[in-house]
């Protein structure tokens, strides 16, 4: 198992490096950042000076090697736009995003599994059909759409929740619901299908024939054996949620990392974009490693294979 974990972590580091490299070249394809940083009519010498300062005058491969060195030494750069060290910038913004993303993920997981289980047990009933229809709606509705609808309805018409900012607990409700809607729907559908499938297995009847009560049959044997794909999907939702937060934070003017990233990309603030992507890539990669390890924990057959 340890060998498997180490191998998996090394693969993860490689993935993150690949993503970082791609992003490095992608942002530089968008053009020269100095265009945004200097005012119109600035002298060419000033522009040249700035270009040297930013190292954008050097050939790309030299820039790449320099950046890689900086990355490894922890010198991640300086945001021209915010006039701040990027690490400090993310120290402010990241917690804001996490405050939103983590509860949303939890909400999605708990509600998703609960709804999926109910739908599966009452399979083909009215409750099941309702869950199926509602989840399709939330699955297909884009975050920004749902966000705007909520603002229109709950903030502007009913005046229950504020439409922007992160001042009170009330500010959390709408962005969290928006962010959790997609994952809840996905997880609910998957849990339902997986559980319906598991419940047709003969070992379910085997458990019933032991005299185990139906609720314990569902939890101990049904859910336990359906969980592998569900856990995978929950882990993958981390990517969806962080990606979604870029949109949701903009809709609700939430001062988080997503909002920062969008502005930085617009302004060719390379260092900010690069660190942002690095953080997201690392988080998603770690999530995937945890998913893989959880399979070993959930399923003895997987444990046997990786031994």
């Amino acid at each position: 198992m340890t060998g498997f974990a180490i191998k998996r972590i090394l693969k993860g580091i490689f993935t993150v490096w690949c993503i970082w490299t791609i992003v490095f070249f992608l942002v530089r394809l968008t053009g020269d950042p100095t265009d945004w940083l200097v005012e119109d009519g600035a002298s060419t010498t000033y522009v040249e000076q700035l270009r040297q300062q930013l190292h954008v005058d050097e050939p790309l491969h030299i820039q790449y090697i320099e950046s890689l060195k900086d990355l490894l030494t922890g010198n991640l750069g300086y945001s021209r736009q915010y006039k701040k060290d990027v690490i400090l910038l993310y120290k402010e913004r990241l917690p804001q995003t996490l405050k939103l993303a983590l509860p949303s993920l939890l909400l999605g997981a708990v509600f998703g599994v609960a709804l999926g289980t109910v739908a599966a047990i009452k399979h083909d009933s009215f409750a099941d059909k309702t869950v199926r229809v509602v989840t399709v709606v939330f699955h297909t509705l884009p975050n920004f759409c749902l966000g705007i609808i909520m603002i229109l309805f709950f903030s502007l018409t009913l005046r229950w929740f504020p439409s922007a900012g992160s001042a009170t607990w009330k500010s959390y409700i709408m962005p969290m619901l928006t962010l959790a809607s997609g994952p809840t729907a996905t997880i609910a559908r998957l849990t339902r299908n997986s559980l319906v499938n598991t419940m047709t297995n003969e070992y379910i009847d085997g458990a019933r024939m032991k005299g185990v009560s139906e609720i314990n049959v569902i939890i101990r044997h049904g859910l336990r054996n359906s969980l592998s794909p569900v856990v995978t999907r929950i882990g993958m939702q981390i990517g969806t949620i962080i990606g979604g937060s870029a949109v949701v934070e903009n809709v609700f003017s939430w001062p988080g990392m997503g909002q920062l990233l969008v502005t930085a990309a617009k302004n060719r603030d390379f260092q900010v974009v690069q660190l942002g992507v690095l953080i997201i890539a690392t988080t998603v990669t770690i999530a995937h490693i945890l998913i893989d390890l959880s399979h070993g924990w959930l399923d003895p057959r997987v444990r046997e294979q990786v031994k």
Partner: protein
Amino acid sequence: MDNILEVRNLRTYYHTRTRTVPAVDGVDFTLKPKEILGLVGESGCGKTTVARSVVGLINRRNTKIESGEILFKGQELNGMDSHRLCGIRGKGISMIFQDPFVSLSPVYTVFSQIYEVMKAHDPEITKAQARGRIIELLQNVGIPSPELRLDDYPFQLSGGMQQRVMIAIALANNPDILIADEPTTALDVTVQAQVLDLLLQLRDRYEMAMILISHNLAVVASICDRVCVMYGGVVVEEASVYDIFDHPMHPYTKGLMASIPSISGDRKEELFSIKGNVEVIEPPVTCCRFCKRCERATEECRLSEPPLVEVGPGHKVRCFNRDRED
């Protein structure tokens, strides 16, 4: 009390969107303590549905027990609330299934699967108390060095060992009845012989009655005391194992026996084969269910269903032409 299980006029129908399939359509049988009763027939004859109806293991969404009494030690099981039924499953009546690989939960160890059935009927029992009993059980079902097997998962065991674990689970609470649904069909012949012998020995050791469901007449002949032959959801012939093999009376029973290639005696060029296929007849049934495939069917057979008639001590046949020689 004479009979440990009495089933009277059991009807279990399976409903699809377009039609009703009478999987079991009026089955009566009794089971005495320590008796091994064989339910034999081809796929679709209703033998498994009978067993599943007895313990309430039917898919309630599309299957319904339409009528019937299922008396286990005098208690009515049909319509019993699920809490009391859970108290009987795994303690009064246990069941083992055809394919042990899919009937054992894949993610739990041998120990925890057996512990679960003990715990379900004795919430006080601790793992330490159970351990000794589980090792003894595994020994009784013929698992070598059981201490080493306790922490194995089902996929680490061979098919024969898995079926033995299944049997250990079924016996953990000393049941009065063991229902074995095709217990050896998924196993190799040499392992089948081991498991059949084990079931016979366990019947004596645990003093339990057994219902053996099988499509294989030879398996039934080798361990059963009494046999019910089923066709189209009803019992067509019931007799002691000797009577049924010595003097089969129903044309279906005779046909089944003639269609098995034999392992001894002369090699036949051609086997007897029952013409046609099993057909679903929707209720109400107004003919003999076997008449379309029967060589001796008469007009009477096409107009009304023959009753199950006692023709000798404990020998019952459902056929109008039972006395005709052919």
